[in-house]
């Protein structure tokens, strides 16, 4: 199981700004190890953010997203104390969901 995500959500005006830092290797599948063997790709493929059961952002990623990916976005609404949930799935079928309280 991967390390937890760092999620920060804050009300800015009438929107909520969400910043996420995920912990993932994001191996491209293009690199070779010391023996010249290809290191298999290992990266996050889908990311979903939900607020009150409603999807506020969904994304599909390729291996060109940086290691330990960063993501930020804003959605309308959201109140202090509410929770935002982020889920990712990688190409090995690993999955992780974390939530943060809007501050």
């Amino acid at each position, binding site marked *: 199981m991967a390390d937890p995500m760092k999620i920060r959500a804050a009300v800015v005006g009438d*929107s909520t700004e969400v910043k996420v830092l995920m912990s993932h290797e*994001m191996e*491209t599948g*293009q*690199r070779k190890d010391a023996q010249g063997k290809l290191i298999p790709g290992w990266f996050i*493929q*889908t990311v979903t953010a939900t607020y009150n059961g*409603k*999807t*506020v*952002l*969904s*994304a*599909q*990623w*390729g*291996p*060109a*997203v*940086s*290691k330990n*990916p*960063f*993501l*930020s*976005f*804003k*959605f*309308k*609404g959201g109140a202090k104390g509410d929770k935002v949930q982020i889920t990712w*799935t990688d*190409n*090995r*079928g690993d999955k992780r969901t974390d939530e943060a309280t809007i501050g």
Partner: protein
Amino acid sequence: MDSKRREILKTGGGLTLLSLAAAAGWLKPGDAHAADWNKAAFETKSMDETMKALGGGAPAQSMNITFVSTPDIAENGAVVPIGVASAIPKTESIAILIEKNPNMLTAVFDIPPGTEPAVSTRVKMGQSSNVYAVVKADGKYYMASKEIKVTLGGCGG
């Protein structure tokens, strides 16, 4: 194929249909869970192919797409911050493409109503390249591009 499947089903009762499908080569292991990941689009090598795989035609240049907090020169190609904001009404999705990477498509963000059409993330770049932001709005495609110079490549380690 069908009769074979029945045979296997009869003999190997413990096999699930999914593992059977995997054995038959319909699904590569690791694909089954990410059905909503557009594999074809992420394997394309040119703008035309990518647009086709995403289901759109050639995008029109637009001044209403801007790169936010994106550098002109990136010192480290492994971590290049890219932010894209769209001022086009009814923006449905934002895609980031990097021309000179092994596969052009880097990320696709679906923007549901109520979410601001602006996202930022960090990407890897093998070398200096044009970066395209493709926005789908009201069923049409628009794009903007920006050249980012990379001092140290981010692929190959």
